[in-house]
């Protein structure tokens, strides 16, 4: 499979000496919805800025669409749509005029079809009705949509979205996810950064995890989650009896929370039904019983040994 983004030992040390990205080697396959995951301050935005040619790497190399960045910005960037660190707009211009300006900044954009492109992008993000309003009167969610519209002015081969759901309400988040899926179905590779695990889990086919400037892991989401073990969860009002029975069966109880017991998953050779029967036999009233699949969050905790929301 062709790669759309490839970095080798990409490193950025800012002038203050702060190491923002440390020898990052990233591979984004074509057609993927690639989740770029990490707490705030883990180097995601710096990486994206290097990929977009805004920042010169201290060492290492980055290729986007098979061309070196930042050298090939003129050839690469017209085929890349980007939303970087939130939208930035000219408050004194209307939404439509903002898009017209960004479109005219692209030298490969035909001025004769500019208006049609802008209208199409406005339509796509649902801003057609508010297009004549000054951008400073927009809500955060509308600004975010307008930023997305700017990224969608042209058919793109790669879409880079840095925290695209920031500031959006649940409805807006759902719409963005739907849009990302649509774009992916059209064959656009989407590179999506986020600090929200469930967001990545819902839309991404691949993911990479960053912490403190370093790449922790990358690969298909299913494989990443499979790397972490699931959990046995028993819901019952008879917590103490249930805990005793589980221990007798050789299962380590992890946490007890109200009427919920979370335990290590049973070994593969143990029959879950038999375990359940053992509980019921001693009079434990079982309300819920089962093994929960590991989430990406479990994978992250397993990899870093710490909670996800700890900022670098």
């Amino acid at each position, binding site marked *: 499979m*062709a790669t759309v983004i490839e970095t080798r030992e990409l490193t950025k040390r800012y002038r203050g000496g702060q190491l923002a990205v440390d020898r990052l080697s990233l591979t984004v396959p074509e057609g993927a919805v690639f989740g770029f995951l990490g707490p705030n301050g883990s180097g995601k935005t710096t990486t994206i*800025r290097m990929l*977009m*040619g*805004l*920042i*010169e790497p201290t060492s290492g190399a980055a290729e986007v*669409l*098979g*061309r070196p960045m930042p050298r*090939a*910005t*003129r*050839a*690469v*960037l*017209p*085929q*890349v749509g*980007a939303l*970087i*660190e*939130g939208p*930035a*707009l*000219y*408050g*004194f*211009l209307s939404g439509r005029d903002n898009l*017209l*300006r*960004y*479109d*005219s*900044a*692209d*030298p*490969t*954009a*035909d*001025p004769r079809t*500019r208006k049609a492109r802008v209208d199409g992008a406005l339509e796509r993000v649902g801003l057609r009705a508010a297009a004549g309003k000054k951008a400073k009167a927009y809500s955060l969610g509308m600004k975010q949509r307008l*930023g997305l519209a*700017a990224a969608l002015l042209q058919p793109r081969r790669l879409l880079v979205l840095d925290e695209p759901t920031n500031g959006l309400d649940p409805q807006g988040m759902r719409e963005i996810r739907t849009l990302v899926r649509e774009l992916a179905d059209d064959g656009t590779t989407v590179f999506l950064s986020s600090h929200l695990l469930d967001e990545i889990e819902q839309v991404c086919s691949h993911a990479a995890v960053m912490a403190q400037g370093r790449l922790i892991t990358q690969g298909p989401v299913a494989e990443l989650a499979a790397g972490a073990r699931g959990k046995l969860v028993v819901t019952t009002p008879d917590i103490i009896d249930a805990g005793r029975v589980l221990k007798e069966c050789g299962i380590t109880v992890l946490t007890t929370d109200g009427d919920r017991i979370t335990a290590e998953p049973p070994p593969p050779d143990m029959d879950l039904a038999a375990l359940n029967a053992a509980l019921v036999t001693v009079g434990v009233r079982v309300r819920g019983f089962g093994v929960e699949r590991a989430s990406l969050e479990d994978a992250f905790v397993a990899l870093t040994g710490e909670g996800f929301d700890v900022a670098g």
Partner: protein
Amino acid sequence: MSQAEALAAPRVKAVWTLGLLRSELSTTFRRWRTLALLAVLTGVPILIGVAVKIETSDGSTIGGGGPDGGGPAFIAQITNNGLFLVFTSLAATLPFFLPMAVGVIAGDAVAGEANAGTLRYLLVAPAGRTRLLLTKYATTMTFCVVATLVVAVSALVTGAVLFPLGDVVTISGTRIGFAEGLWRAFLIALVVAASLIGIAALGLFVSTLTNSGIAAMATTVGLLITVQILDQIPQLHAVQPYFFSHHWLSFADLMREPVYWDDLTKNLQLQALYAAVFGSAAWARFTAKDITA
């Protein structure tokens, strides 16, 4: 790699790249700030004209002394010929109002976009750093011309309304026709606009150094004031010919018959030098800069 070859030639037509300049011009001239600056510049000639009219309404003359008696150059002749209000107004606005306005526009050019965050989106569009910088400089120069013409036209209209128009007496004492006088006024406006090339380049360079539009504007206007003050200190006469404002008032030599070109040429050469030095500095800085805003 086949993918790389497919990318090799994004189709760009030369005229399409001018779209950014058009967008830049319309964006700049639609800002309230730009319009406010132009409004102030429109007001200056009207103020001078009305003041002269009031002071001379009892038949007395302005200044009372020789040609350098008081107020800006040519002020004493306005009552005889409204066309002189154009020269007076340009002489009055060139030392401060015009360069201040240009400093605001030039200082904000890059830093203002960085401040708003729009710079990163222009660059990933991709506007291209050199192209964006050239566009910004061209827009600033356009503003120089527009601002100067605004002063000149406002002065001409005010002069025509308040005072008689007619043949023009040059500084050398000879008479030239009104049409010729009008032509000279136009040339003077162009020279005044060209006198602002230096501060425009300086402002643009300052603008690439910071991510704060306000800081860049303040620095540029501060430099303007500092240079104007230093230009008045006699002990510094050795370096004064290199100040961008040193030959500014040489435009008056266009009102001599024949025209005295020495200082005019020196002024234009100096402005070209500033454009080359600070233009290159701005380019070197901007094309190598990490865009973190």
